[in-house]
Every structure is written in C-alpha cells, then in structure tokens.
C-alpha cells in the first residue's frame, strides 16, 4: 500500500515538474514510457498460491506457466518480444488484491494470469475491471456459491464454474453404477464442497428420481484423520459414496477407507481426486471407482503430441505426473499469446489491451488437453475427463479406463442461467 502511494506521489511530482518545464517535456516522458512498453519484454504477472492446502495446485499452475514461457521464448517470443514472468503470491483476498495492484501499477505487467481460490478471485474480479488490464484466472471464478456475480466483465476472464466436475460425475454415475438407491456425500466445509454436493444431488435426482441421500459430512479443509467419518459412512450403509476432496485429504480418505474395506461393499465417486492422482497408490486405491481429473488426463492414449511432450518433460524435471492445473495455466497464457497475435493483424503492430480482450472473446486454441476456448462472457470452455479406476498400467498408482470426456457445453450452465433451474429443465 505504502509503496503504491510512493509511486503515485512520485509520478504526480514528475507531472508537476513536467508542467513546470513545459508541456513538451511531459509529452516526451509519456512517449518514452509507451515506447518502452511495446519493445521490451512482455510482462506476465502470475499469481500463485504458495502456502497451505492448495500449495501443490499453485505449484502445478506455475510449472505449466513456466513451461509455456520457455517454449514461447525459444520460438522467438510474442511478436518478437520475449516473455518475462513476474510472480506474486495468492494468499487471502485482501493481500492478493494489493499484490494484483502492485503487478499492474508498479510492475506494469501486460496481463495477469492466475488465481485459484474463488474466495480470492471474487475479490480480484472488480479490481481487474477497475485497473483495465486483462486478467485470466486459472481456476477461480467470480461465483458466489453457484450464482455468477459478474455476468458481463470487460477485463476479467474466469475459470469454468466450480460445480462442473460434480455435474459431470452426476451424469456418469448412473451409466457406470446400476441400481444405486442411497448415496452418502463427503466434501470440504467451504463453498466448493457444498456446491459440488448440491449440484451432484440435483443431477443424480434427474436420472434416478427415487435416490435417497442418506448422509452428508463436511470436515474442515486440512483434516488428516477420517477414521471417524468413515465409521459414519459405513454405518449409513449407502450404496455409493460421493467425495469432492481434491488435495491430500483425498489420498488419506482413500487409504483409511481401504483399511476397513469400505469399497468392498460401496461404490465410490471421487469427482476431483485426479488433482493428486499420482498419490492414489494401487496398494490402497481399488479398481472400479469413478475418478475425475478435471480438464486434463495425463495418460490419455489419444493425447496430442503437445500433451505427450509436456508429460515427458514434466516427469523428467519434477519426477511427478502433471495434474490439471498445468492445463488451465497453459491455456490462459497461450490464449493471451494467440489473442495478441490475432489483434496485431498483418501489420504485426502490438495491440492495445482492449484489442487483446476483444480478440480473446470466443477464441479457441490448442491447449495441453486439446481444444479449449473462451466463451463470449469470458468463461473457460473445455472438456472434463473422468473414468473408472484401473490397476492395469505401468505406474504404482491408479489410472482410468474407460476414459469419459464431457464438454462444458453439456455440463456447465449457459451464460445467464440459474444452475438448478437449468438442471431441472434437462431432458433426461
């Protein structure tokens, strides 16, 4: 805050000085500034979660962005300008908004990418609109619960709606698990966990009208002992357990459930556990669960050469297999590049920020996971990958076979509609 004030007052001082020395001097200063902006490196501000439960997700997003930047720079940059990443931390909404302002006002970045927690991105949306620099969100929306708060943004580009993977799982559940009558649910005790559970129930009820939801558990984010929750789930005698955990807690509940043989009698749907897919070891993760990988499945036999190259290099560098956040991050950065090139036109003149934004609207490009696009109202469109867990692979963790691919065209509420009205209007 102080630093920003400092810069502002210094700039004001310069302006006064400029006025004193004559209008010509001030104009000269301005010209230099804009000249520097379109020839030096393209500055890409990156907001990354560094601490807490979502730190691994943040790390994956940053890795995806770094891989993109290296690749672009090797190929000569964007319109000949090299890419430079300016990384700041995403933490709580208040501090992140300050860092966002710093990126735009002080570092003078051309675009900001990143944002994972919707708690944070809800606050970033209006700030991005205010500061007039494009912001492309990896994984955060501007939804309050399942309701959109910014239906017509100018500068903010948002992730897919949070509840999409629960909706996809709801669509796939009746296809793979016949005769389900009772369902228990467990999710983290915050917006994502509750929204996923509500949406999953709404969808499943459309396919199985007499299904009963017999138990719902919402432990806090960060809990590492679910033995008591599992005792309650066993007691519920549900036919199926739906779980929307996406961090280490998914690994833990899998392990502790296996230890009491929970999935010997119960079916399991893990909408988002693909986020920690390589920690789901075969030792304790059974075959036959429905497992969601969000928008990118690293082991897709139909993967593009781009994805195959990325997976290979990611494994070589980090000794891990990449999760979906890499794809969100790659898509955001790459779509910015393509939009700049498109807006530049044949003259290859560096476009204004507003021109870039217009070029992004409706833009479809090749991302790691395949074709992805921006809907006209600035929401990501993509495919979701889910499937049935299998041990038949060369890894020590589970993968999926068959692989189901469901588009946001089918599983995300259309612009301007209300989620539950939309679901209840489906022809099933």
């Amino acid at each position, binding site marked *: 805050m102080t630093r920003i004030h400092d810069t502002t007052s210094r700039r004001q001082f310069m302006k006064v000085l400029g006025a004193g020395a004559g209008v010509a001097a001030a104009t000269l200063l301005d010209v230099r500034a804009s000249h520097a902006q379109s020839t030096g490196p393209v500055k890409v501000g990156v907001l990354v979660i560094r*601490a*807490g*439960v979502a*730190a*691994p997700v*943040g*790390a994956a997003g940053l890795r995806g962005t770094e891989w993109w930047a290296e690749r672009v720079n090797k190929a000569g940059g964007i319109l000949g300008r090299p890419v430079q990443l300016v990384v700041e931390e995403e933490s709580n909404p208040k501090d992140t908004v300050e860092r966002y302002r710093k990126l735009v006002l002080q570092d003078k970045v051309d675009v900001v990418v990143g944002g994972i927690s919707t708690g944070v991105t809800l606050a970033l949306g209006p700030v991005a609109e205010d500061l007039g620099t494009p912001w492309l969100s990896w994984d955060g929306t501007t939804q309050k619960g399942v309701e959109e708060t910014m239906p017509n943004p100018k500068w903010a580009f948002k992730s897919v709606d949070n509840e999409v993977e629960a909706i996809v799982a709801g669509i796939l559940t009746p296809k793979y698990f016949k005769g389900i009558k009772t369902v228990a649910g467990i999710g983290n005790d915050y917006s994502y966990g509750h929204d996923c559970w509500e949406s999953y129930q709404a969808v499943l009820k459309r396919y199985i009208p007499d299904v009963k939801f017999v*138990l*719902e*558990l*919402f*432990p*806090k984010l*960060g*809990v*590492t*002992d679910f*033995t*008591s*929750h*599992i*005792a*309650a789930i*066993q*007691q519920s005698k549900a036919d199926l357990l739906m779980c929307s955990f996406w*961090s*280490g807690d998914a*690994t*833990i509940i899998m*392990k*502790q459930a*296996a*230890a*009491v*043989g929970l999935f010997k009698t119960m079916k399991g749907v893990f909408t988002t556990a693909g986020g*920690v897919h*390589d*920690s789901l*070891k*075969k*030792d*304790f993760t059974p075959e036959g669960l429905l497992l969601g990988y969000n928008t990118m499945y690293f082991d897709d036999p139909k993967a593009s050469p781009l994805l195959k190259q990325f997976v290979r290099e990611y494994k070589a560098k980090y000794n*891990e297999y990449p999760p979906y956040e890499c794809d969100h991050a790659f898509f955001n950065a790459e779509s910015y590049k393509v939009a700049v090139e498109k807006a530049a036109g044949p003259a290859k003149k560096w476009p204004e920020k507003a021109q870039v934004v217009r070029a992004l609207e409706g833009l479809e490009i090749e991302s790691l996971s395949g074709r992805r696009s921006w809907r006209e109202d600035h929401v990501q469109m993509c495919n979701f990958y889910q499937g049935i867990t299998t041990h038949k692979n060369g890894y*020590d963790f589970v993968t999926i076979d068959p692989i189901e691919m469901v588009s946001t065209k089918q599983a995300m509420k259309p612009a301007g509609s209300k989620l539950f009205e939309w679901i209840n209007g489906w022809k099933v």
Partner: protein
Amino acid sequence: MDQRLEGVAVAHAVNVLLSGLFHASVLFLVAAGLQVVFGVQKIFNLACGSFYALGAYVGVSAVGWYVGAGGPPALFIVPLALAGLAVGAVGVVVERGLLRFVYDRDETFQLLMTFAIVLMMEDAIRLTWGTAPRSTGGLYLAYGQVRLFGATVPVYNLVVIAASLAIALAIGWLLARTAFGRIIRATADNREMAEALGVDMRRVYAKVFTLGTALGTLGGALVIPATAAMSEMGIELIVEAFAVVVIGGLGSMRGAFVGALVVGILRAIAISVYPELEMLLIYLIVIAVLVARPRGLFGGAAA
C-alpha cells in the same frame, strides 16, 4: 431388536470408539509435548504441531529408505519409531538457538516466536519434501485387519493406540519415579527454589524441550502410515491440542491424557450422530470446563 441388528449396532459402536481412541492417541502425544514444555518452561509452544508434521515427513522418508534397502515390511515400525525419536533432537537446536533468548520476555513475544517457528518449519518442509502429499503407500495394512465384534479394524490403528498408551505410562513413570522427573516437577513447581538447590536450569530446559519435541515427532511418525503427510498438517492439530489442554488443565500430563480421550471420543460420536456438531461440541465442552473449572479438569497440579 433382532440379533442381526444388534450385531450391526455393536459393530458400529466399536468402529466409533476405536476411531475416537485412534484420534485421541495422536492428540495425546502432541498435547503431552505441549504440556511438558508449558509445565516447566511456561512457554505455550505452538510449534508442537510443526514437530508433529516434521516427524511425519521424516517417517515417510525413513520407511521409504528402509523398504528400498530391502527391510522386511513387517518390521517397518522399528525404523519409523527410531526416526521419529531421532528427529526430536531438532528440539535442542530450537531451544538453544531460538527459544532461550526469549525466556525473560513477555508471553506474547514467546508466543510469536513459536508461531514464527511454525511458519519456518512449514516452508522448510516444503523445500525439503516438495508440495505434493507424501505417504508410505500400502504399509498401513502390513499388519492386516482384525474383526472385532463385527467391525473391521486395521491392526496398525491398534498399534498406534497401544504405543500411545505405553508412552503415557512411560512419561508417568519418568515423572514420578526418576530423579529427572523429580527435577522436572520441582522446577515446574518453583523454579527459583529448584535453581537455588543446584538445578542447572539450562540443561533442564534443553532436555525438557527436547522431550516435548520428541513426543510430537514420534506422534507424527507413528501416525503417518495411516494417513498422508501434508506440510500444513500441524496447524490443524494445534487447534485441537489447544482444546485438549484447556479441558485437561494447562501443564498437567494427566490432563492431556483425559483431555485427549474426551476430545477424540466425543468427536467420533458427534461425527456419527450429528456431524454438524463435530467441532462445535468440542468447543462447547471447552466453554463448559472454563466456566465450571477455569483451570481445567486437572489444572493446578504441577505435572
């Protein structure tokens, strides 16, 4: 009630009770570390949760190394416990390197210092082991499962419960029957008098803090086969350990034992009967204890 239904009810009761005891066992070890340090050094050590996380990560590495070297899986608990104990030595470093400078400072300053240690340890763990959750894979089930009154129980959970109980007894013996225990109790009771009688406070503080640290690291190492290590796993536990010591009475070892049992078992019952009450119930009890017995169930006793 017909017999089959009765059997189901018994199995569920066993499940709930054992899951509560399992949770209580881990809570006890962390809370015991908190208590022994507070009892003697009068420092409320928030870093006890970080030591727990550190023990968990070192445990994962030790077991990984052991299995990689071809050690028989059935004996994995030996390197695990040894690693958990050994890394407790980090307590000496923290006490001599940081804490001893704040003994005479304000309590809030001490609290801030231990919180700074929490943040530093979280970063150190992330730098060393990376950000992804780490686990010991399938070793959790190396000892198999048993059927108890119709409930399936992983034997390893029983091992953790037994180990925690054994450690509680060992601490009781240490405090009540050994010369070191008498010195600890004397120091907790009246530091000046103990010092006047020739107790070397520097050594006692270093030893006590290391003991407190080792209880945390051992707790983390013991629990890790049943869960997965995450760098922030300590924070969650500090909050619950805090409830344990308020219920049991700050500084009391017996209080830590009873407090952990109360919190662990009531949490399990709440989750199974009325899950919305999970955390609330614990705090309701904390409030009730604070109103009825402000010093906790066993407060006032030295150790």
